[in-house]
C-alpha cells in the first residue's frame, strides 16, 4: 500500500526512550553460534520514516545487537533507498534484486507486492518461518498476506486498517448525532450532504482519487467500497479476476454520486493530497468525513510533526460500512509491510534470523507505535511500549480490534496493473471525464486485456 511520509509519524517524545529496548532473543529457531564475518544489507524505503526521524536504525539496530550476541562477526548495514513515491522505491528495489552484486540480504517489502515479487523470483520462500516459535502468534490474516502459492515469503512487521474519521462539530451542526457510525453507503452520502448544506466552506467528504495517488486512490477510494458489496477484485475460489458485476456497478455509481461532496480537483489530483488532508484540512477542522488509514491519527500526538491533541476529542472514528449493511455490516482492508529475503541474498540463514529477531514483540512494539502502524501479532498488544502508545492515541485501540476481521488485496502479480487502472478510473470519475457506466466498461476491457480473457469472470448476482 502506498505509505507516505506522514503515513507514519512519531507517537510521542515519551516513547523515544523506549526505542532502544530490545529485550532478549530466545525467539529464534536457528541460532547456531558462528564467527564467520559477514555483512547483512537491509534495504528499506526512506518514505516509510516519519518526517525528521529515521526509525530503522533503532529498530533494525536492536535486532542486529541481538544477532551479534550469537554471531559476533556479523555486521548489519542499513541501505536506505531514497525516493519520493513508493512505486519508485519498488522499481529501484526490484532492479537491485535482479543482480547478485546489488541484491540486499533483507528487503522491506510492501505486502501487496509479495506475490508479484515472489513470482518474479526476486524473493525466496522462507519455510523456516512457519516453524519459528513466533509464527503462531501472528493474526491469521497476517500469515496469509505473506503467503503466495502456499509458500511463506516474509514476516509482517506492521499493518493497518481503514477507518471513517468524522468531525463531531460539523456533524452536529448538520443535525447528525454523534458518536456516529454509518451503516450503509447512503448514510455517508446523507451526512456529507447535510454537512455541505450546513457549512459550505468545508470539504464535506474526503475520498482519495486519481492516479497521482496511485495505490491510495485504488485502495481507499475504490476497494474499500467494492469490498462492501458481494463482488471482489479476485475470486479466490475460481482463481479468476472479476471484471464486472452488480457490486462493481454499485461502486462506480457510488463514486459518481459522491462527486458533489468530495474535495476539489486541485486537492485530490495533487501528489501531496494525503498531506493536504492530514496536515491541513483535519487540524483546521475543515473536513467533515475522511476515509483514510488508521495511522493518520499518529500525526496529531504530542511530539509529532503536527501535534493536535484536540483531534482526539474533536474527531470521531467509525468502521467502514458495507453497501447496505450486508455481511455483518462492516468491512475492512489492510495493507502493511513485511521483511523478506531476496533470492540472491548472500547469507539467507542470517537474514532469516535477523527477521525473526526484528519481529519480536519487544522490537515491534516501539516500531509500530512510532510509525503509527498496527501490530501484526498478538503479543505486541501487551508490550508496555504499545500499551502506553494506545493511551496517547486511542485510535490504536479501536483499529486493533478490527484486525481479526480484516482482509487484504489479491496477491496475484497482475494486481499492480489492475490497481493502477482503478486509480486512473477513480480520477476520471472524480473529474467528470467519465461516468460510472464508462468506467465500468473500461475497467472490464482493460483488466481483461491485462490478465487475459481466460482469467476473468463476470458476476451476475
Amino acid at each position, binding site marked *: 500500500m502506498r505509505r507516505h511520509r506522514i503515513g507514519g509519524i512519531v507517537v510521542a517524545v515519551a516513547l523515544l526512550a523506549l526505542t532502544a529496548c530490545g529485550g532478549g532473543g530466545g525467539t529464534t529457531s536457528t541460532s547456531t553460534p558462528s564467527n564467520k564475518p559477514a555483512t547483512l544489507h537491509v534495504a528499506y524505503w526512506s518514505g516509510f520514516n516519519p518526517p525528521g526521524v529515521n526509525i530503522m536504525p533503532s529498530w533494525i539496530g536492536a535486532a542486529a545487537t541481538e544477532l551479534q550476541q550469537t554471531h559476533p562477526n556479523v555486521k548489519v548495514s542499513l541501505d536506505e533507498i531514497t525516493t519520493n513515491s513508493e512505486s519508485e522505491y519498488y522499481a529501484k528495489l*526490484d532492479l537491485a534484486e535482479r543482480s547478485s552484486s546489488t541484491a540486499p540480504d533483507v528487503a522491506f517489502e510492501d505486502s501487496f507486492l509479495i506475490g*508479484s*515479487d515472489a513470482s518474479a523470483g526476486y524473493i525466496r520462500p522462507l519455510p523456516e518461518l512457519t516453524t519459528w516459535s513466533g509464527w503462531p502468534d501472528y493474526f491469521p490474516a497476517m500469515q496469509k498476506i505473506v503467503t503466495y502459492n502456499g509458500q511463506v515469503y516474509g514476516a509482517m512487521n506492521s499493518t493497518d486498517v481503514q477507518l471513517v474519521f468524522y468531525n463531531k462539530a460539523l456533524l452536529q451542526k448538520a443535525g447528525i448525532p454523534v458518536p456516529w457510525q454509518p451503516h450503509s453507503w447512503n448514510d455517508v452520502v446523507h451526512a456529507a450532504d447535510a454537512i455541505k448544506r450546513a457549512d459550505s466552506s468545508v470539504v464535506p467528504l474526503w475520498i482519495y482519487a*486519481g*492516479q*497521482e495517488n*496511485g495505490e491510495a486512490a485504488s485502495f481507499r477510494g475504490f476497494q474499500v467500497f467494492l469490498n462492501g458489496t458481494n463482488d471482489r477484485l479476485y475470486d479466490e475460489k475460481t482463481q479468476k479476476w472479476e471484471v464486472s458485476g452488480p457490486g462493481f456497478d454499485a461502486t462506480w455509481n457510488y463514486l459518481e454520486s459522491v462527486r458533489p461532496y468530495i474535495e476539489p480537483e486541485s486537492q485530490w489530483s495533487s501528489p501531496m493530497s494525503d498531506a493536504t488532508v492530514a496536515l491541513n484540512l483535519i487540524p483546521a477542522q475543515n473536513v467533515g468525513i475522511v476515509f483514510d488509514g488508521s495511522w493518520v491519527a499518529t500525526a496529531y500526538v504530542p511530539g509529532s510533526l503536527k501535534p493536535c491533541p484536540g483531534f482526539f476529542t474533536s474527531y470521531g472514528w467509525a468502521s467502514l460500512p458495507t453497501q447496505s449493511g450486508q455481511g455483518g455490516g462492516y468491512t475492512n482492508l489492510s495493507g502493511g509491510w513485511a521483511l523478506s529475503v531476496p533470492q540472491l541474498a548472500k547469507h539467507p540463514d542470517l537474514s532469516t534470523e535477523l527477521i525473526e529477531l526484528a519481529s519480536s514483540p519487544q522490537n515491534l512494539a516501539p516500531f509500530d507505535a512510532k510509525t503509527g502502524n498496527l501490530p501484526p501479532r498478538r503479543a505486541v498488544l501487551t508490550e508496555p511500549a504499545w500499551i502506553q502508545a494506545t493511551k496517547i492515541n486511542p485510535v490504536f485501540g479501536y483499529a486493533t480490534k478490527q484486525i481479526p476481521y480484516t482482509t487484504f488485496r489479491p496477491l496475484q502479480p497482475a494486481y*499492480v496493473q489492475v490497481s493502477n487502472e482503478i486509480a486512473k478510473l477513480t480520477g476520471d470519475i472524480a*473529474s467528470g471525464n467519465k461516468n460510472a457506466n464508462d468506467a465500468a466498461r473500461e475497467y472490464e476491457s482493460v483488466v481483461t486485456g491485462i490478465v487475459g480473457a481466460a482469467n476473468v469472470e463476470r458476476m451476475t448476482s
Partner: protein
Amino acid sequence: MALPMVVVVLVFLGWPTIWTFVLSFTNMTVTGPAARHYHFIGFDNYRKLFASGSGLTDSIRRSLYYLVVSAYLGQAVFGFFLAMLMQRCSRALRAAVGAIVVVAWLIPEIVIAWMWFVLLSDGGTAQQATQALGLHYSSWLVTHPMLAVSLANSWRGVAFSYLLFSAALSDVPKDLIEAAKVDGAGGLRRLWRIILPLVSTTILIDLVLITLGTLNDFSLIYAMTGGGPGDASSVLSVFMYRQAFVTYQLAFGTAIAVVMLALGAVFAVIYIRILRRQGALNLAR
C-alpha cells in the same frame, strides 16, 4: 586514434540504444513472472501502443505543444527578441539583463520545478497575490497544466537561445544595417531581409538543440505536475516513465522510448537537411 572514441560511443551510447530496441520486443516487466523470465513477443508492444486508446497520440500531441509553446515561442522567439532589444541598450543594462537571464539557466532543474510549483499551486504565491487584488485564481497546475509547465520551461531555457542570438547579432555588420537604412528599408524589412538571413544558421542550430532537449524533457514536468491531473500533462517522456516504472511494464516503456527516439530523429533529419542546404553543416557525404 579514433578507435577509443568509437569504443566509448559504442559501449555507452550504442549499446543502451540497441538494448532498449531489443527489450521493446519482449514482455519484460519490473516485477511479476515476466520480470526475469521474459521472452520475445514480436511487435505486440507496438501493436498495443498504436492501438486507439493507448494514450500515445495524446502524449505526442502534448509533447508537440510543449515543443512549440515552450521551446519555439518561449525560448527561441522570445530569446531572439530579447537579444534584438538588448542590442540597442547600453552595455550596463545588457550585462544586468544577461546576468539575470543566465541565473535562471544556472539554477538546477528540480529547484526551478519547485519554484514554479510554489508559485502556481493551490495556496501558492500566485493565488495569494491575486486574492490580495480581489481576483479569483485556481491553480494553473490543475486548470492549465501544459501552459504551466511550458511557462516554467521557457523561463528556464530562454537564456540559452538569448546568449546564442546575442553573439550572432553582434556579428551582423553595422554598416550593412546602416546601408539598408539609407536605402529606406524599414525595421521589419531589415529584420527579414538582412538580419534573419545572416543569423539563420545560428537559429537552426538553436532549434536543433532546444528541440531535442525539450522533446526529451522529463524532470521539470514530473516534479511540477507528476504528469497530471490525470494524464493532462503526460508528455511522451512522462507516459514512458509511468508505463515503465509506475505500472512496471518495462518493455512497453522501452517501446515508447523507441517512438521518442524516432520522433527526435525526424526533427533532427529535417534540421540537418536544412543546414546542409545552407552549406553550414559539413558532414561527410
